[in-house]
């Protein structure tokens, strides 16, 4: 799965670059508008190493941000699963806050928390959190009637059991959402760095943009793509392993 992710990304990236180069050739554009192969290679030689460390820096915030958002999404999702007033309030709040663009909230975050690590982490978590929350809310709020009915009529249903049943029955959906949210967390961190930070690949992209250096941006995109593919591949593999392990260990036993 991991290697498939990487070569799929390479195919997409190469198609993208080829498309740009075809436009460059077709319209006789200078290297300022679209860099040629020689300039991309030359820039890569110079920028790959620093950009690798920049992406790793961003990834460290991404992983932490995603972890935080998973915890938050599950906490709020579980609390808001009931069709009570509180549950419905949490759902409405989640839907509404999602509507606010992060670029509008970011300046407030930076004024309150400065432009360091915490702001990057918070923005990454926020971008990643809402889609996760909506999925978790959707899953946790939908009863698995066939199974739950048994525990309800026998008087053995507890909230922990209810959560377990619903999570187990939707495991594939949950792991897909969690691995998918990695790209959102990465995008969130990059947005935060782009708006205000002194580190990370988003910050480097901003500098490259100031200098209208598309070659550097293409290299940055390559580094982001390859590293996020590896990270997502790892998450998917982990998800598969958890699913297999859980299925074997339960084998029809009581949850």
């Amino acid at each position, binding site marked *: 799965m991991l290697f498939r992710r990487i070569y799929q990304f390479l195919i997409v990236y190469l198609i993208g670059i080829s498309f740009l180069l075809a436009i460059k050739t077709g319209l006789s554009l*200078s290297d*300022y508008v679209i860099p040629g192969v020689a300039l991309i290679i030359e820039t890569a030689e110079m920028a790959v190493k620093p950009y690798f460390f920049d992406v790793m820096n961003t990834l460290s915030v991404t992983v932490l941000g995603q972890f935080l958002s998973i915890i938050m999404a599950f906490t709020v999702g579980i609390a808001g699963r009931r069709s009570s007033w509180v549950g419905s309030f949490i759902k409405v709040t989640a839907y509404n806050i999602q509507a606010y663009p992060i670029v509008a909230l970011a300046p407030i975050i930076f004024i309150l928390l400065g*432009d360091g690590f915490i702001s990057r982490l918070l923005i990454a978590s926020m971008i990643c959190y809402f889609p996760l929350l909506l999925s978790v809310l959707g899953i946790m709020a939908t009863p698995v009637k066939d199974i739950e009915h048994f525990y309800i009529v026998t008087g053995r249903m507890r909230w922990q059991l209810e959560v377990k049943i619903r999570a187990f029955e939707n495991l594939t959906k949950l792991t897909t959402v969690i691995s998918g949210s990695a790209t959102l967390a990465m995008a969130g961190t990059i947005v935060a760095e782009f708006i205000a930070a002194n580190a990370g690949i988003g910050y480097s992209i901003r500098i490259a943009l100031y200098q209208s250096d598309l070659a550097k941006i293409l290299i940055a995109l390559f580094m982001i793509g390859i590293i996020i593919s590896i990270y997502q591949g790892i998450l998917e593999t982990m998800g598969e392993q958890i699913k297999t392990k859980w299925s074997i260990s339960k084998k029809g036993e009581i949850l």
Partner: protein
Amino acid sequence: MRTNNLTVLLFLICLIVATPLSAKEIKVNYRLKWLFNTSVAGDIYADAKGYFTQAGLSVDVKEGSPEKNAINELELNYADFGVASADQVIRALDKGAKIVVIAQLFQVNPMQWIYRADQPEIKTLADLKGRNIGITFGGNDETVMNTLLAAAGIAKDEVTITGVRFDFTPFFKRKVDVWPVYRNSQGVILKDKLGKEGEKVYFFNPADFGVNFVANSVVTSEATVKNNPDTVEKFLSALLKGWEAAMDPANEDFTLKAVKKRDTGTNDEIMRQQLIATRELIKPSAAVKIGTIDIAAWKQTESIMLLEKQIKKPVNIETRLIQIK
């Protein structure tokens, strides 16, 4: 006989159709560098007063933004003329773009630094020592500040450099002493805000210390200058007429009204102050003709960029400057 009549009729039809075509205005796209505000007062004025129309041109004055690059648009034929900063022009030439500069709008670079008047005034470059200086990493101000520090022989550890962005909080909180601003836009706003708190400010202008880094200029493609010299002349003449009028204090009310139509978010008094500040940068003295290309300043800008490794090779900028009379 019938054939002759038909020929005459066809000729007349062609004549009728062709006449309005020849009288039709030439469509021109003009991409600005930044959002509509007093920094582009002359462009707005020329449009609002109909100078372009009078010159037989139908000019679409398009707002700029960080993502919109006039030079890219020239190459892609989305724009016929545009406004670009000198560093953009020199970088583009370094990468093979075929563009030329036909007018220099800002005679003094608006990119300056603001600092509180309760701090010692910066009278010589040596006065920068020990200060916490804000710079936008990757921006022009970084290049200019590096040049200033090098010229003064100030080592990097003799000052504190802090990366800054749009949020002025570090300056308000006095975490950064000297903050980079566009003198005629952010500079006016900050001066006003601090003024309300009873604080006075100074501006540190690199040009006062011999560093003339050129700012916004009007650019077009080599092909346009070669193939449509008449359009270039008409466009520039109408544009500069607009700028001359907009910078004339006698036309202040009309200028502000025209800008206000496109920049509804800025309050009237701030806008008036911004116009005054813009006037000093575009037309620093009555003797200066708007649009004059300061060749020496362009050469210095190129030298600075070479020294700072912003470009790989000399671009001989003087060969790309066309002062249209």
